[in-house]
Protein backbone atom coordinates (compact mmCIF):
# COMPACT_ATOMS: atom_id res chain seq x y z
CA UNK A 1 0.00 0.00 0.00
CA UNK A 2 2.92 2.27 0.40
CA UNK A 3 2.68 3.00 -3.30
CA UNK A 4 -1.05 3.71 -3.18
CA UNK A 5 -0.67 6.07 -0.26
CA UNK A 6 2.19 7.83 -2.02
CA UNK A 7 -0.01 8.33 -5.06
CA UNK A 8 -2.83 9.66 -2.89
CA UNK A 9 -0.44 12.16 -1.37
CA UNK A 10 1.07 13.13 -4.69
CA UNK A 11 -2.27 13.44 -6.39
CA UNK A 12 -2.36 17.19 -5.83
CA UNK A 13 0.39 18.82 -7.87
CA UNK A 14 1.56 15.97 -10.03
CA UNK A 15 -0.30 12.72 -10.05
CA UNK A 16 2.06 10.26 -11.61
CA UNK A 17 0.90 7.32 -13.66
CA UNK A 18 -0.48 4.41 -11.74
CA UNK A 19 2.77 2.61 -12.40
CA UNK A 20 3.37 -1.02 -13.10
CA UNK A 21 1.09 -2.38 -10.43
CA UNK A 22 3.87 -2.72 -7.88
CA UNK A 23 2.37 -2.15 -4.46
CA UNK A 24 5.46 -1.21 -2.53
CA UNK A 25 6.29 -2.44 0.95
CA UNK A 26 3.66 -3.13 3.63
CA UNK A 27 2.93 0.15 5.38
CA UNK A 28 1.98 1.03 8.93
CA UNK A 29 -0.03 4.25 9.28
CA UNK A 30 0.76 5.59 12.74
CA UNK A 31 -0.28 8.45 14.98
CA UNK A 32 -3.45 10.23 15.92
CA UNK A 33 -6.27 10.84 15.52
CA UNK A 34 -7.89 7.71 14.29
CA UNK A 35 -10.37 9.60 12.12
CA UNK A 36 -7.58 11.08 9.97
CA UNK A 37 -6.15 7.60 9.54
CA UNK A 38 -9.55 6.35 8.45
CA UNK A 39 -9.87 9.17 5.92
CA UNK A 40 -6.44 8.46 4.45
CA UNK A 41 -7.13 4.72 4.29
CA UNK A 42 -10.41 5.48 2.56
CA UNK A 43 -8.64 7.77 0.08
CA UNK A 44 -6.17 4.98 -0.62
CA UNK A 45 -9.04 2.53 -1.10
CA UNK A 46 -10.67 4.83 -3.66
CA UNK A 47 -7.33 5.39 -5.40
CA UNK A 48 -6.74 1.65 -5.75
CA UNK A 49 -10.37 1.03 -6.74
CA UNK A 50 -9.88 3.43 -9.64
CA UNK A 51 -7.00 1.42 -11.04
CA UNK A 52 -9.20 -1.41 -12.20
CA UNK A 53 -6.90 -4.11 -10.87
CA UNK A 54 -9.48 -5.72 -8.67
CA UNK A 55 -11.46 -4.90 -5.56
CA UNK A 56 -10.15 -3.39 -2.33
CA UNK A 57 -10.65 -5.21 0.96
CA UNK A 58 -11.20 -2.78 3.84
CA UNK A 59 -11.19 -4.39 7.29
CA UNK A 60 -12.36 -2.49 10.33
CA UNK A 61 -13.95 -3.50 13.59
CA UNK A 62 -17.05 -1.37 13.21
CA UNK A 63 -18.96 -0.11 10.17
CA UNK A 64 -18.24 3.49 9.22
CA UNK A 65 -21.06 5.73 10.38
CA UNK A 66 -20.60 8.14 7.51
CA UNK A 67 -18.37 8.77 4.53
CA UNK A 68 -14.88 9.64 5.77
CA UNK A 69 -14.34 11.86 2.74
CA UNK A 70 -16.38 13.95 0.37
CA UNK A 71 -14.15 13.99 -2.68
CA UNK A 72 -15.14 13.36 -6.31
CA UNK A 73 -13.70 9.85 -5.98
CA UNK A 74 -15.81 9.23 -2.86
CA UNK A 75 -18.92 10.17 -4.82
CA UNK A 76 -18.08 7.79 -7.64
CA UNK A 77 -20.40 4.78 -7.22
CA UNK A 78 -18.25 2.69 -9.54
CA UNK A 79 -15.28 3.12 -7.25
CA UNK A 80 -17.30 2.72 -4.07
CA UNK A 81 -18.72 -0.62 -5.09
CA UNK A 82 -15.17 -1.91 -5.59
CA UNK A 83 -14.42 -1.35 -1.90
CA UNK A 84 -15.52 -4.32 0.16
CA UNK A 85 -15.91 -3.69 3.86
CA UNK A 86 -15.69 -6.49 6.39
CA UNK A 87 -16.03 -6.10 10.13
CA UNK A 88 -14.23 -8.78 12.15
CA UNK A 89 -15.18 -8.04 15.75
CA UNK A 90 -12.36 -9.86 17.52
CA UNK A 91 -8.86 -11.21 16.97
CA UNK A 92 -10.12 -14.78 16.36
CA UNK A 93 -12.59 -13.46 13.77
CA UNK A 94 -9.87 -11.41 12.10
CA UNK A 95 -7.50 -14.39 11.99
CA UNK A 96 -10.27 -16.62 10.65
CA UNK A 97 -11.01 -14.11 7.90
CA UNK A 98 -7.35 -13.75 6.89
CA UNK A 99 -6.60 -17.47 7.07
CA UNK A 100 -9.55 -18.40 4.85
CA UNK A 101 -9.45 -15.75 2.09
CA UNK A 102 -8.20 -18.38 -0.36
CA UNK A 103 -11.47 -20.29 0.00
CA UNK A 104 -13.45 -17.44 -1.57
CA UNK A 105 -13.76 -17.33 -5.34
CA UNK A 106 -13.60 -14.15 -7.38
CA UNK A 107 -10.97 -11.61 -8.32
CA UNK A 108 -8.18 -11.03 -5.83
CA UNK A 109 -8.02 -7.61 -4.13
CA UNK A 110 -5.35 -5.17 -5.23
CA UNK A 111 -5.21 -3.57 -1.81
CA UNK A 112 -5.76 -4.88 1.72
CA UNK A 113 -6.50 -2.29 4.42
CA UNK A 114 -6.96 -2.71 8.15
CA UNK A 115 -8.18 0.24 10.20
CA UNK A 116 -7.72 0.37 13.98
CA UNK A 117 -5.17 -2.34 14.69
CA UNK A 118 -5.07 -0.99 18.25
CA UNK A 119 -8.59 -2.32 18.74
CA UNK A 120 -7.29 -5.83 18.18
CA UNK A 121 -3.88 -5.65 19.79
CA UNK A 122 -3.61 -4.50 23.36
CA UNK A 123 -0.84 -4.53 25.91
CA UNK A 124 -2.27 -7.82 27.11
CA UNK A 125 -1.66 -9.48 23.75
CA UNK A 126 1.26 -11.85 23.76
CA UNK A 127 4.13 -10.81 21.46
CA UNK A 128 3.77 -13.98 19.45
CA UNK A 129 0.07 -13.28 18.98
CA UNK A 130 0.86 -9.78 17.69
CA UNK A 131 3.56 -11.18 15.42
CA UNK A 132 1.24 -13.82 14.06
CA UNK A 133 -1.45 -11.27 13.25
CA UNK A 134 1.09 -9.05 11.47
CA UNK A 135 2.62 -12.00 9.65
CA UNK A 136 -0.78 -13.35 8.60
CA UNK A 137 -1.70 -9.91 7.21
CA UNK A 138 1.49 -10.00 5.14
CA UNK A 139 0.82 -13.58 4.11
CA UNK A 140 -2.70 -12.69 2.98
CA UNK A 141 -1.50 -9.73 0.90
CA UNK A 142 1.22 -11.97 -0.54
CA UNK A 143 -1.38 -14.57 -1.50
CA UNK A 144 -3.51 -11.87 -3.19
CA UNK A 145 -0.39 -10.75 -5.06
CA UNK A 146 0.13 -14.30 -6.22
CA UNK A 147 -3.46 -14.33 -7.51
CA UNK A 148 -2.97 -10.95 -9.21
CA UNK A 149 -0.13 -12.47 -11.19
CA UNK A 150 1.05 -10.28 -14.04
CA UNK A 151 -1.42 -7.52 -13.16
CA UNK A 152 0.69 -6.45 -10.22
CA UNK A 153 0.77 -7.04 -6.51
CA UNK A 154 -1.57 -6.48 -3.60
CA UNK A 155 -0.67 -3.62 -1.27
CA UNK A 156 -1.11 -3.69 2.48
CA UNK A 157 -1.74 -0.73 4.78
CA UNK A 158 -2.55 -1.05 8.46
CA UNK A 159 -3.56 1.90 10.65
CA UNK A 160 -2.53 1.90 14.29
CA UNK A 161 -3.41 4.76 16.61
CA UNK A 162 -0.58 5.48 19.00
CA UNK A 163 -1.06 6.69 22.56
CA UNK A 164 -1.55 10.41 22.77
CA UNK A 165 0.13 10.69 26.17
CA UNK A 166 3.29 8.97 25.06
CA UNK A 167 3.73 10.25 21.55
CA UNK A 168 4.67 7.54 19.14
CA UNK A 169 4.20 4.72 21.58
CA UNK A 170 1.90 1.78 21.06
CA UNK A 171 1.84 -1.80 22.28
CA UNK A 172 4.11 -4.06 20.26
CA UNK A 173 5.22 -1.20 18.00
CA UNK A 174 8.81 -2.40 17.65
CA UNK A 175 7.60 -5.88 16.84
CA UNK A 176 5.15 -4.57 14.24
CA UNK A 177 7.85 -2.43 12.61
CA UNK A 178 9.75 -5.64 11.93
CA UNK A 179 6.96 -6.67 9.56
CA UNK A 180 6.12 -3.24 8.16
CA UNK A 181 9.22 -1.61 6.69
CA UNK A 182 7.29 1.43 5.44
CA UNK A 183 5.71 3.81 7.91
CA UNK A 184 3.66 6.96 7.71
CA UNK A 185 3.35 9.02 10.88
CA UNK A 186 0.54 11.51 11.45
CA UNK A 187 1.02 14.07 14.17
CA UNK A 188 -0.51 17.30 15.34
CA UNK A 189 1.01 20.47 14.03
CA UNK A 190 0.31 23.99 15.25
CA UNK A 191 0.74 25.57 11.83
CA UNK A 192 -2.93 25.34 11.01
CA UNK A 193 -3.92 28.27 13.16
CA UNK A 194 -7.47 27.84 14.32
CA UNK A 195 -7.75 24.62 12.40
CA UNK A 196 -6.52 21.43 13.97
CA UNK A 197 -3.47 20.38 11.98
CA UNK A 198 -1.83 17.04 11.62
CA UNK A 199 1.67 16.57 10.43
CA UNK A 200 2.63 13.26 8.93
CA UNK A 201 5.86 11.65 7.81
CA UNK A 202 6.33 9.00 5.21
CA UNK A 203 9.30 6.73 4.85
CA UNK A 204 9.13 3.77 2.52
CA UNK A 205 12.07 2.05 4.16
CA UNK A 206 14.98 2.69 6.44
CA UNK A 207 17.17 4.07 3.67
CA UNK A 208 14.47 5.75 1.60
CA UNK A 209 14.51 9.50 1.00
CA UNK A 210 11.92 11.67 2.67
CA UNK A 211 9.02 13.34 0.91
CA UNK A 212 6.75 15.94 2.40
CA UNK A 213 3.11 16.85 1.89
CA UNK A 214 0.49 19.03 3.43
CA UNK A 215 -3.02 17.61 3.58
CA UNK A 216 -6.05 19.67 4.52
CA UNK A 217 -9.45 18.27 5.29
CA UNK A 218 -11.84 21.08 4.42
CA UNK A 219 -15.05 21.63 6.38
CA UNK A 220 -17.08 20.30 3.46
CA UNK A 221 -15.30 16.96 3.69
CA UNK A 222 -12.90 17.51 0.84
CA UNK A 223 -9.24 16.69 1.20
CA UNK A 224 -6.59 19.06 -0.11
CA UNK A 225 -3.06 17.82 -0.52
CA UNK A 226 -0.03 19.92 -1.38
CA UNK A 227 3.67 19.31 -1.26
CA UNK A 228 5.27 20.38 1.95
CA UNK A 229 7.66 23.16 0.94
CA UNK A 230 11.13 21.78 1.45
CA UNK A 231 12.61 25.05 2.67
CA UNK A 232 9.80 25.51 5.15
CA UNK A 233 10.06 22.08 6.58
CA UNK A 234 11.52 21.75 9.97
CA UNK A 235 12.83 18.68 11.64
CA UNK A 236 10.05 16.61 13.04
CA UNK A 237 9.84 16.48 16.78
CA UNK A 238 11.75 13.46 17.77
CA UNK A 239 9.61 10.42 18.21
CA UNK A 240 11.43 7.60 19.83
CA UNK A 241 13.79 6.72 17.06
CA UNK A 242 11.24 7.02 14.33
CA UNK A 243 11.82 10.51 13.04
CA UNK A 244 15.24 10.33 11.50
CA UNK A 245 15.12 10.63 7.76
CA UNK A 246 11.38 10.92 7.42
CA UNK A 247 9.18 13.02 5.28
CA UNK A 248 6.55 15.27 6.68
CA UNK A 249 3.00 15.82 5.68
CA UNK A 250 0.50 18.05 7.36
CA UNK A 251 -3.14 17.28 7.73
CA UNK A 252 -5.37 20.16 8.60
CA UNK A 253 -8.43 18.56 9.98
CA UNK A 254 -10.45 20.97 12.00
CA UNK A 255 -13.59 18.95 11.57
CA UNK A 256 -12.19 15.51 12.18
CA UNK A 257 -13.82 15.06 15.52
CA UNK A 258 -17.08 16.53 14.33
CA UNK A 259 -20.14 15.15 12.72
CA UNK A 260 -18.42 13.80 9.67
CA UNK A 261 -15.86 11.82 11.61
CA UNK A 262 -17.76 9.99 14.28
CA UNK A 263 -15.21 7.26 14.79
CA UNK A 264 -13.40 8.96 17.63
Amino acid sequence: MAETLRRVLEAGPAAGPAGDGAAGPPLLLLGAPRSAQTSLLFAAALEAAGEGRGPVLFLTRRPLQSMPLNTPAARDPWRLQKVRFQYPSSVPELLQLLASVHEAPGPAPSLLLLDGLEEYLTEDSRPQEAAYLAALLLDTADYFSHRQGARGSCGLVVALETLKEADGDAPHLTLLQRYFPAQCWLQSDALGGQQHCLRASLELGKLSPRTEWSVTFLPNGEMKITSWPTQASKPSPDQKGSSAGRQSLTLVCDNLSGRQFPLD
Partner: protein
Amino acid sequence: MAVTLPEVVEELLREMASAVRDGARIPDEHLSSLKFVFGSSAIQALDLVDRESVTLISSPSGRRVYQVIGSSGKTYTCLASCHYCSCPAFAFSVLRKGDSLLCKHLLAIYLSQVMRNCQQLSVSDKQLTDLLLMEKTQEA
Protein backbone atom coordinates in the same frame (compact mmCIF):
# COMPACT_ATOMS: atom_id res chain seq x y z
CA MET B 1 9.94 -15.76 0.97
CA ALA B 2 9.40 -12.11 0.22
CA VAL B 3 11.13 -10.89 3.33
CA THR B 4 14.70 -10.03 2.54
CA LEU B 5 17.61 -11.53 4.35
CA PRO B 6 20.83 -9.61 4.81
CA GLU B 7 22.75 -9.53 1.54
CA VAL B 8 25.56 -11.63 2.91
CA VAL B 9 23.13 -14.44 3.80
CA GLU B 10 21.37 -14.22 0.43
CA GLU B 11 24.74 -14.50 -1.30
CA LEU B 12 25.73 -17.48 0.82
CA LEU B 13 22.47 -19.30 0.06
CA ARG B 14 22.86 -18.52 -3.66
CA GLU B 15 26.37 -19.98 -3.70
CA MET B 16 25.23 -23.08 -1.84
CA ALA B 17 22.34 -23.52 -4.28
CA SER B 18 24.73 -23.12 -7.18
CA ALA B 19 26.98 -25.89 -5.82
CA VAL B 20 23.97 -28.21 -5.39
CA ARG B 21 22.81 -27.43 -8.92
CA ASP B 22 26.20 -28.39 -10.28
CA GLY B 23 26.00 -31.68 -8.43
CA ALA B 24 28.91 -30.71 -6.24
CA ARG B 25 29.30 -30.99 -2.52
CA ILE B 26 28.57 -27.81 -0.63
CA PRO B 27 32.03 -26.42 0.09
CA ASP B 28 33.14 -26.59 3.72
CA GLU B 29 33.81 -22.86 3.71
CA HIS B 30 30.14 -22.20 3.02
CA LEU B 31 29.15 -24.41 5.91
CA SER B 32 31.61 -22.57 8.11
CA SER B 33 30.13 -19.26 7.03
CA LEU B 34 26.67 -20.58 7.81
CA LYS B 35 27.81 -21.56 11.28
CA PHE B 36 29.50 -18.19 11.74
CA VAL B 37 26.27 -16.31 10.92
CA PHE B 38 23.72 -18.57 12.62
CA GLY B 39 25.73 -20.26 15.36
CA SER B 40 24.48 -23.59 16.64
CA SER B 41 21.19 -23.11 14.77
CA ALA B 42 23.06 -23.83 11.53
CA ILE B 43 23.97 -27.37 12.55
CA GLN B 44 20.50 -28.03 13.94
CA ALA B 45 18.89 -26.69 10.77
CA LEU B 46 21.12 -28.83 8.56
CA ASP B 47 20.16 -31.80 10.70
CA LEU B 48 16.46 -31.03 10.17
CA VAL B 49 17.05 -30.86 6.42
CA ASP B 50 18.90 -34.18 6.49
CA ARG B 51 15.93 -35.73 8.24
CA GLU B 52 13.56 -34.34 5.59
CA SER B 53 11.66 -32.44 8.26
CA VAL B 54 10.50 -29.57 6.06
CA THR B 55 7.19 -29.83 4.17
CA LEU B 56 5.65 -27.27 1.88
CA ILE B 57 1.88 -27.66 2.09
CA SER B 58 -0.23 -26.17 -0.67
CA SER B 59 -3.91 -26.15 -1.60
CA PRO B 60 -5.63 -25.81 -5.00
CA SER B 61 -6.01 -22.07 -4.32
CA GLY B 62 -2.26 -21.66 -4.54
CA ARG B 63 -1.89 -20.65 -0.90
CA ARG B 64 1.04 -22.25 0.87
CA VAL B 65 2.38 -22.81 4.34
CA TYR B 66 5.40 -24.68 5.70
CA GLN B 67 5.49 -27.22 8.45
CA VAL B 68 8.72 -28.24 10.10
CA ILE B 69 9.03 -31.20 12.44
CA GLY B 70 11.34 -30.11 15.23
CA SER B 71 14.00 -32.25 16.84
CA SER B 72 11.58 -33.06 19.65
CA GLY B 73 9.03 -34.36 17.17
CA LYS B 74 6.74 -31.38 17.61
CA THR B 75 5.41 -29.80 14.42
CA TYR B 76 5.81 -26.06 13.88
CA THR B 77 4.01 -23.88 11.38
CA CYS B 78 5.99 -21.37 9.37
CA LEU B 79 4.47 -18.87 6.97
CA ALA B 80 5.69 -19.01 3.40
CA SER B 81 5.67 -15.25 2.79
CA CYS B 82 7.45 -13.75 5.78
CA HIS B 83 9.43 -14.75 8.81
CA TYR B 84 7.12 -16.35 11.32
CA CYS B 85 7.50 -19.64 13.17
CA SER B 86 5.32 -20.91 15.97
CA CYS B 87 8.27 -22.27 17.97
CA PRO B 88 9.30 -20.85 21.38
CA ALA B 89 12.77 -19.90 20.12
CA PHE B 90 11.27 -17.63 17.48
CA ALA B 91 9.12 -15.95 20.13
CA PHE B 92 12.02 -15.47 22.50
CA SER B 93 15.25 -15.09 20.54
CA VAL B 94 13.90 -13.47 17.39
CA LEU B 95 10.88 -11.47 18.54
CA ARG B 96 11.64 -10.58 22.15
CA LYS B 97 15.39 -10.41 22.42
CA GLY B 98 16.05 -9.68 18.78
CA ASP B 99 19.47 -11.33 18.94
CA SER B 100 18.69 -13.97 16.33
CA LEU B 101 17.80 -13.46 12.71
CA LEU B 102 15.90 -16.72 12.30
CA CYS B 103 15.03 -19.79 14.31
CA LYS B 104 16.41 -23.13 13.18
CA HIS B 105 13.09 -24.08 11.57
CA LEU B 106 13.02 -21.02 9.31
CA LEU B 107 16.67 -21.56 8.46
CA ALA B 108 15.87 -25.19 7.65
CA ILE B 109 13.23 -23.99 5.17
CA TYR B 110 15.81 -21.88 3.35
CA LEU B 111 18.31 -24.75 3.41
CA SER B 112 15.75 -27.31 2.22
CA GLN B 113 15.15 -25.12 -0.82
CA VAL B 114 18.88 -24.87 -1.44
CA MET B 115 19.32 -28.62 -1.07
CA ARG B 116 16.12 -29.46 -2.89
CA ASN B 117 14.76 -31.88 -0.37
CA CYS B 118 11.70 -29.97 0.76
CA GLN B 119 8.76 -32.37 0.98
CA GLN B 120 5.54 -31.45 -0.81
CA LEU B 121 1.99 -32.06 0.35
CA SER B 122 -1.33 -31.07 -1.20
CA VAL B 123 -4.38 -30.44 0.97
CA SER B 124 -7.82 -28.95 0.40
CA ASP B 125 -8.42 -25.20 0.72
CA LYS B 126 -10.35 -25.79 3.92
CA GLN B 127 -7.56 -27.89 5.39
CA LEU B 128 -5.08 -25.15 4.62
CA THR B 129 -7.25 -22.66 6.52
CA ASP B 130 -7.29 -25.03 9.48
CA LEU B 131 -3.50 -25.35 9.35
CA LEU B 132 -3.13 -21.58 9.43
CA LEU B 133 -5.53 -21.30 12.36
CA MET B 134 -4.21 -24.28 14.27
CA GLU B 135 -0.97 -22.36 14.56
CA LYS B 136 -2.43 -19.79 16.90
CA THR B 137 -3.33 -22.41 19.43
CA GLN B 138 0.27 -23.53 19.78
CA GLU B 139 1.58 -22.07 22.96
CA ALA B 140 5.00 -20.54 23.16
